[in-house]
Each structure stands twice: as structure tokens, then as C-alpha cells.
């Protein structure tokens, strides 16, 4: 379908955009890559009076990596991450997860900020943000807020972003050398939203896993941490029995709803399998396929 009528504004500066939103935020939508918002307009799920195109705002662009971590400007496109060699070393988990985002043409245009604002429960970037304890920096006319990812996502397609705010960047904590990690997900067609997915990493000390972080997408109304998996692994050598118990813990700790894509029980079971595969990959083990 065609989008409903709207007025189009393209500010060149962040300040101009926030001033406009301070006045009209309630009847405006911010557009960057448009890869989620344009379909929603086409379906007429949203009908804003104003569309504020932030695509030209230079302050929202750029990727930086240093000792304090990684900063991705809101306008960072998936292809920018995909082609950034430095980022592949500086945050291999992020680089791997982004490979799963949507299809080629969408990766050429979709943005980090857009994915965070859209807050699809099965999207990779929100899952990485929650798993890695990222912070999301948002700007308004009257100042900025830094919101921990765990507080940012509050439900399906729902965040704590106010209508007068714009996401400026996401900050990921620094990545420790030697860290073990994995990302995997399952979708019925490559590039489609996952039925379930898992991101995890841990450091090692005397052959045991420490600082375990695990998070899942597609199994709740928002990306979630998996404390049961973290508890099952923390302080343990990552062996096959430990991996099996972590997989069982993952399944038991989520309660996905039934929907047209899959029954809840399917997603629950899938998360267990993906958890086992991810841990095996992180630990460099090959598991026997369970019957």
C-alpha cells in the first residue's frame, strides 16, 4: 500500500532536529534508513504528521573504537559494520551478529539507531546491546540521557525513548582479548527475523569460565539476558555436561508465546539447542548430536 500523507523535514544539524521534536515530537516520526518505518507507513500502522529525516546529520555518523569501548553512531549502517576490519577484531561478537541482519539490500541502508528504536524482539542489534550491557545515548533539546540497554527495551516495538528524543549513539564496553564468544540464530529463510537466537561470551581463568554473559532474541517481547545460563556456566570448565545443563536451563528459563511463526514450545526448545551450539562453538568443542 502507499504511505499516508506527511510533511517531510530534513534537518542538517542535530540541534535543529531536537528543536523541531521538542515542538512537534508527539506528531512526528524520525526516519533514517527507513527499513522498518517505511513498511510500517505502507501498512498504515503509523501515520505521523511529520517525518523528520535525520539521514544527513553528520554528528550521528561514525564508528570509533578505543580503550573505553566501541561507539556506533546512530546512522551506522549494517554494511559499515560488515566492512569494518578493525571492528571485527575490536568486537567479534557484534561483527558476527550483524551478519545475520536482514537481507543484502536492507543491510545497505538499515541503521543501528533505527534497529534500536524499532525494538523488534527478534532483532540482532538490540540483543547484542542487552547481552553486552551497552548504553544508548539519546539527545533532546534540553540535553542528553545515557540509558542502559536493559532499561531501554520495555516491550515489543516499545522503548523508553521519548518522542522528543533522537538516538545519537550506542556504546559497547571494551572487548577483552582472548574472550570466548558465539552468536547463532535460526530463521526459516536466511535474513528473515529469527525464531530464536543467542549471543554469549565469557572470559577464562584457570580453565574455568568467568564473567559469563548470555542473551536471547525472539523468545520474549524484548531481548533478554539469560541468567540461568550464566549461572550454569560461571566458574565451570565449559565441558559437554555443563553445556547440556546450560541448554536445559535456557529452555526452562523462557516462556515464549505462540504466534503464526512458531508455537512457544518450539521456540523454547530451539533456544536450548542454540545455547548448546553457541557454547560448543565458543569452547571449541564438537557435541554429539542428541537423539
Amino acid at each position, binding site marked *: 500500500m502507499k504511505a499516508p500523507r506527511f510533511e517531510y523535514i530534513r534537518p542538517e544539524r542535530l540541534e535543529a532536529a531536537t528543536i523541531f521534536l521538542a515542538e512537534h515530537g508527539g506528531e512526528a516520526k524520525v526516519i533514517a534508513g527507513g527499513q522498518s518505518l517505511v513498511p510500517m507507513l505502507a501498512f498504515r500502522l503509523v501515520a505521523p504528521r511529520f517525518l523528520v529525516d535525520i539521514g544527513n546529520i553528520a554528528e550521528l555518523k561514525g564508528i570509533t573504537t578505543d580503550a573505553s569501548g566501541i561507539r556506533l553512531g546512530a546512522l551506522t549502517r549494517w554494511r559499515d559494520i560488515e566492512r569494518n576490519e578493525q571492528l571485527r577484531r575490536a568486537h567479534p561478537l557484534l561483527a558476527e551478529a550483524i551478519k545475520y541482519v536482514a537481507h543484502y539490500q536492507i543491510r545497505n541502508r538499515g541503521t543501528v539507531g533505527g534497529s534500536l528504536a524499532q525494538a523488534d524482539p527478534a532483532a540482532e542489534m538490540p540483543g547484542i546491546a542487552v547481552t553486552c550491557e551497552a548504553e544508548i545515548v539519546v539527545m533532546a533539546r534540553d540535553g542528553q540521557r545515557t540509558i542502559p540497554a536493559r532499561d531501554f527495551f520495555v516491550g515489543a516495538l516499545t522503548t523508553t525513548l521519548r518522542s522528543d528524543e533522537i538516538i545519537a549513539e550506542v556504546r559497547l564496553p571494551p572487548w577483552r582479548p582472548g574472550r570466548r564468544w558465539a552468536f547463532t540464530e535460526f530463521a526459516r529463510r*536466511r535474513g528473515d527475523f529469527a525464531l530464536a537466537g543467542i549471543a554469549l561470551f565469557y572470559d577464562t581463568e584457570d580453565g574455568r569460565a568467568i564473567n559469563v554473559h548470555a542473551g536471547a532474541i525472539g523468545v520474549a517481547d524484548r531481548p533478554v539476558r539469560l541468567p540461568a545460563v550464566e549461572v550454569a556456566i560461571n566458574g565451570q570448565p565449559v565441558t559437554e555436561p555443563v553445556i547440556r545443563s546450560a541448554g536445559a536451563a535456557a529452555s526452562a528459563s523462557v516462556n515464549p508465546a505462540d504466534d503464526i511463526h512458531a508455537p512457544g514450545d518450539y521456540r523454547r526448545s530451539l533456544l536450548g539447542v542454540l545455547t548448546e551450539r553457541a557454547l560448543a562453538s565458543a569452547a571449541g568443542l564438537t557435541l554429539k548430536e542428541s537423539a
Partner: protein
Amino acid sequence: MSGSQKVRFKVNGKACEAAVEPRTTLADCLRHDLKLTGTHVGCEHGVCGACTIIADGAAVRSCLIFAVQADGIEITTVEGLSDGDTLSPLQAAFRKHHAIQCGFCTAGILTTAHMLLTEEPDADAERIREVLSGNICRCTGYVQIVEAVLDARASYKTNSKAAQ
């Protein structure tokens, strides 16, 4: 402001101008205002890939861009791939392998594959299949399409600046 706005961009090397409503997609602008009907519109919500064009050197879905957002960019549509009636090597490979059934998805697949091979002339069959997962061919003729793209790789290696 919700009336007409003027947009200017370069399409297939030619400066173009159109007056569009902000809600007009770039796909509709190309087809209706510029009469470039080679770009096909399938799903109108970014799933089928039929409307894929090349915008500033990247394959993108023209149904997910409003024409007003495209002001000032450089666009290549399927019409810009060939040299008049002379098929590009990629198009010739599609013909040779009969990588076409109904033809509806073809424009989007050609533009996508053209950019892929321009950027990655060594793409293997797996990579080609991954990239083409964003283009729905409901005749399901993917086998020949992949064969044609594989066959066309040679022309991008010797002439890496092809039609771009």
C-alpha cells in the same frame, strides 16, 4: 509541504527532476514520473526485492526510500545496466542460462547481482544465494539464476569498473 516537492537526482547518468508528494516512493517516482518502468514494484514493503536499484553505489529497495530522501543522489536502474540494445555481460549470461521465467523479479535480481559482482567479483555460489535471498522469484528459477551470476563473474574480474 505535503504538496509537491521538487527532487533532483542523476538517473543512469542523466540529470533528472520531478515534483513529488513526500509520500511518493522512489520506485513510484522512477516509474510514474520518469517513465522508467524497468524497475518493478512487487510487495511495496521491502520483502520481495523486485524494486532493487543502485543508489550511490549500493543496491537498495526503492520502495523503502521516499523520492524526497533521494534528492541529490546517483541512481542506476536496470535500464542503465545495458548499453542501448547491447546487453551487459551479466544480462547476456541471464539470457544464455535462461535465468528468467516470468521476468517480474529480473530487474531487481540484475541490479542486485550487478552490485554484488562489482564489489565481490569472486563471490561463490553460497554467497550469491545468500545475497539473492533478498529477491523473491516465485517461479523459483533460482538454479539458472545462480548459474548465470556465476558465469558472469569473469567479466567483472577483467573489467571491475563495469557499468558503475
